[in-house]
C-alpha cells in the first residue's frame, strides 16, 4: 500500500464529511450524484470500514469512477492525498475480488499483454529510424503510443536522429505497470515494475526518455516502491528532451507553425512532475503565432478523462471530460490544441470523433509539432 495506515485513516477522517473540493472534481460535475463526489466516496469507504456497507461491485464502482488526477489534493488546503486514498481503496477491492467485471477483464488483458501494440523496435526499425544498440539512452514508448500513435513514435525517433542523440529501445518493451497500479492490482503492478527495471538494468540504461507521461510517473514515483531497482537511471519525458535540444540548437526550426495554439497540461507532467515550462518553451520556439493559455492551465489543468483508467471503465464519462476540455481549448480561439501525453491525445481525438458538435480544433502531440517545425516528418 502506498498510504500508511495513519495517512489513510487521517485522509478518510478529513474527506468523509468535507465537500470543499467538490467543485474541483469534474467527474462529480459530470455525473451530478452525491455518491460520486469526493465526500460521497470517502463516506462510503468509511462505512465499509465500519461494516455498514458491503465490499461489492456497487461500492467499487464509486472508486473506479474517478480520474485520480491529483487536482483534488492540490485544491485541498489540508493537502490530504485523496487520489492515493482512492487507489488504495481500489487495491482493497481488488484483493477481495470485489471489482466490477469490466475491471477484472481489463486486468486480465493487461496481464496477457493484449492491446500492447507492435514492439517499438519493429515500428522504428521498419520506418528506418537509426538506433544504436550500444546507446545508454532508452526510448520507452508505452503501450498507448505503440497502439495508437506509431507515427508519432517514428517522428520522435527521427527527432533523436536529427538531434544527433543516440538511443535505442528495449527489444521487448513490457508494460510499465501503471495501468495495473491504477486498477488496484498491486501484485501485478509490482511484478511488471520489477520486470521492466530488470530489463533496463540488463540493457545498461543510464537514461530513459518516456513518451507516455504515465509511464514516466510510474518510473519516477512507483517503480522503486514496487521493488523495481532503477538505481543510477535518470528518467525524463520526451518534451523535456525536445525542449533541451531546441534550446541547445541540436534541433533547428525551419518551418515555424501558424498559431494561435493552446496547450493542455497532462496531469502526470504538470501536477506530479511540475513539467510546465518545457512544453511551453517548445511551443514558443516552433509556433510563429500566439500561444494562448486556457483559464485552467499548468498545475491547475483538469484531467482530459484518461486519468485513473476512467476511459477504460466509464468511457462515456471520460468522453464528457475530454469534450469539456476541448470546449475550453476552443474558447481561447486557438486553431490547434497541443498536448504532450499520448493518452490525452487519444482522449481528445476520440471525443471529437464521437461528437461532431464539438469545436473543429486540431489536436496535435507536441512531438508532431516539433517534427513539422524542424521539417523531418
Amino acid at each position, binding site marked *: 500500500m502506498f498510504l500508511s495506515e495513519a495517512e489513510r485513516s487521517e485522509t478518510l477522517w478529513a474527506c468523509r464529511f468535507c*465537500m470543499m473540493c467538490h467543485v474541483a472534481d469534474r467527474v462529480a460535475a459530470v455525473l451530478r450524484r452525491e455518491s460520486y463526489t469526493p465526500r460521497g466516496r470517502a463516506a462510503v469507504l468509511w462505512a465499509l470500514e465500519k461494516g455498514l*456497507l458491503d465490499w461489492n461491485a456497487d461500492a467499487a464502482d464509486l472508486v473506479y469512477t474517478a480520474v485520480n488526477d491529483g487536482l483534488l489534493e492540490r485544491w485541498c488546503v489540508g493537502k490530504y492525498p485523496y487520489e492515493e486514498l482512492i487507489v488504495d481503496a481500489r487495491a482493497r477491492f481488488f484483493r477481495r475480488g470485489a471489482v466490477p467485471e469490466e475491471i477484472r477483464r481489463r486486468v486480465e488483458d493487461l496481464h496477457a499483454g493484449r492491446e500492447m501494440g507492435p514492439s517499438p523496435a519493429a515500428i522504428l526499425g521498419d520506418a528506418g529510424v537509426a538506433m544504436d544498440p550500444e546507446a545508454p539512452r532508452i526510448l520507452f514508448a508505452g503501450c498507448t503510443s505503440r497502439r495508437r500513435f506509431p507515427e508519432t513514435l517514428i517522428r520522435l525517433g527521427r527527432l533523436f536522429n536529427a538531434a544527433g542523440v543516440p538511443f535505442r529501445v528495449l527489444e521487448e518493451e513490457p508494460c510499465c505497470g501503471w495501468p495495473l497500479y491504477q486498477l488496484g492490482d498491486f501484485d501485478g503492478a509490482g511484478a511488471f515494475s520489477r520486470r521492466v527495471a530488470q530489463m533496463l538494468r540488463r540493457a545498461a540504461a543510464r537514461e530513459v526518455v518516456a513518451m507516455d507521461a504515465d509511464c514516466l510517473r510510474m518510473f519516477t514515483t512507483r517503480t522503486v516502491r514496487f521493488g523495481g531497482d532503477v538505481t543510477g537511471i535518470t528518467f525524463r519525458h520526451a518534451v523535456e528532451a525536445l525542449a533541451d535540444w531546441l534550446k541547445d540548437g541540436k534541433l533547428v526550426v525551419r518551418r515555424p507553425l501558424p498559431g494561435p495554439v493552446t496547450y493542455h497540461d497532462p496531469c502526470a507532467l504538470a501536477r506530479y512532475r511540475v513539467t510546465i515550462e518545457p512544453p511551453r518553451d517548445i511551443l514558443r520556439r516552433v509556433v510563429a503565432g500566439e500561444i494562448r493559455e486556457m483559464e485552467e492551465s499548468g498545475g491547475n489543468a483538469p484531467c482530459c478523462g484518461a486519468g485513473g483508467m476512467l476511459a477504460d471503465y466509464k468511457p462515456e464519462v471520460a468522453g464528457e471530460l475530454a469534450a469539456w476540455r476541448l470546449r475550453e481549448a476552443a474558447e481561447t480561439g486557438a486553431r490547434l490544441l497541443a498536448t504532450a501525453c499520448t493518452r490525452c491525445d487519444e482522449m481528445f481525438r476520440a471525443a471529437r470523433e464521437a461528437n461532431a458538435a464539438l469545436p473543429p480544433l486540431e489536436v496535435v502531440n507536441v512531438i508532431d509539432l516539433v517534427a513539422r517545425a524542424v521539417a523531418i516528418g
Partner: protein
Amino acid sequence: MSLNEIFIDIMKQLGYFVANLSREFNSMPTDFRYQVIVNEFRDALGSENVSVRPVDLYAYSMDYYLAPQIWADRGLKPCQPDIVVHPGSTEEVARVVKIASRHRLPVIPYGGGSGSQGGVTPLYGGVVVDVKRMDRILRVDDRSLTVTAQPGINGQRLEWALNRRGFTLAHYPASVYGATLGGYIAARGSGTLSTKYGKAEDMVLSLEVVLPNGEVIRTLPVPNHACGPSLLQLFVGSEGTLGVITEVTIRIEPMPEARRFNAYLFEDIRAGLEAGRRIMTRRLQPCTLRLYDDNSSERIVKRVLGLDVRGCYMVVGADGEASAVERTLDAMAAICTEQGGRELGPRLGEHWWRHRYDFYFPPHNLMLPEMSGTVETTTTYDKIYGIYRAKKEAIEEGFKEFGARYIAHFSHWFPWGVMIYDRFIIPKPPQDPQEALELHTMIWAKAARTSLAHGGVLNDHHGIGFKLGWLMPEQYGPAFAVLQAIKDALDPQGIMNPGKFGFARRV
C-alpha cells in the same frame, strides 16, 4: 401536544429509526409495494435516474449535520432514504412529487448537501430528490442584471460562469464550493459580502416551485410590489417543506472596479462592535465587516491565517468604483481608530480575503472528534453585546464540566443590527452517540433560548432543519400556528421534508 412532547416524540422516532434501520431496510427489497413505487419512478425518469443501491442511499444520508456524522463515526447506520431520484427538469420533479404524493412518501429535496441543520436528513425514509442534474443557466439579463438558473447549479460554477461575462453573484458563502443555488434560497444563506449585497432572500427576484401536489407555480416576476403578501418569501427559507424550488431568478452585480481590504485590532470586543455599528449607521456600505472576538482570533485567525494577533481582529472591505472604495476605507479607518482600533494594514486584510475559505477545510474546520455547533443569532445593535455576554456565559459556565469553549465573530451587518456567528466547542464529547447528541441538543437549547430571551432569533443563515425545528413554536409563539396552517394547506399529507422546521408530522 406540548413543545417538549413534540421534541421527545421526534427524538423517540429518530431513536427508533436508528435502532431498527437495518431490519427495516433488509425487508425492503422483498416488499412488493416498494418495488412498484421504484418502478413508477423508473418509468417517470428512466432507470438511470433512480437508485436504490445501498451505497447511494448511504451517501445521501450525509451532510454537515452532526447527528449522521456522529452515527457514522460511531459505526451506526444513519437515517437513509428508500430511493434516490435525479430529475432533469421541472416536469420530472413534478412527476416525482405526484408519485410520492399518491403513495404518501416523504420527499426530501437535496442540493449540495452542505447544510448543517439536518435539513436533508431523511428522518422517515422516503425519496431524496437530488436536483444537481438541473444545473443550467437559462438566461443572463445584462440590462436588468439578473440571472435565471436551475437550482442544482454549483455555487462556484455559477460564479465562474458569471465572472466570464463580467458579473458576479456577490454571494460567497463558506459552502460555495459544494452548495447549490437552490440551497442558497431554501436556507436563506449569506456570504462574506452579504453586508453590502444582502442575503439570499434580498437577492432573489422570483422562483418556480413544484408544490406538494405536483403543480408547478411561479411567483411574481419581481419581488417589490403592492400585490399582497410576498409569495416569493414564503418559499425562500422553506427548506423543502413547502415544495421543490426548480428555477431561480436572482440579482447579479457587475464585477467591481476595485475591492480592497484593511485590518484592525481592538483590545475589547465592545470597541469593535461600536466601530462596526458606527460604520453601518453612517451607511458606509462596506462589502465586508468582520469582527472576531479574542477567542476566535486566537483559535481561528491565528491558526489558519498565521496572523499572530492578540485581541479582537477586524477585517473591513470595500468594493465598487476605485475612488468610492478609497473614500469608504478612509471613513472606516477614521471610525476604527477613533474607537481604539490599531490599524494592521491592508496586507493583513487582503490576506484574510485570499484565505477566507481556508477556515472550512480540514484540518482547520471544526469537526469530529471535537463536537461543535454554530449557534448564530441576529439582533439589533442595542442588544448585541448583551447577547454575546449571555451566550458566552451560558455555554462556558453551563457546560464547564465538558470543557466547553465559546468563540464568536460578527460577520453580517445590517443597517439596524448584526449577526453574531458564535460556536461552542466540546473538545472531548462522550463516545456514546446518544449521550453525545443529547449533550449537543442541550447546548443548542441553552444557546437558542438565551438568544431568544435577549431579543435575538434562532438562526441567521444556516436554516432550521431538524436540529432547531422543535424550537420554532417557542420562537414564534402563537404565530407558529400561521406557518403550520400554511404548511397544512399546501401539504395536507405532510410529505414534504417531514420532521423539519417544527411542523407537525402527518405522513
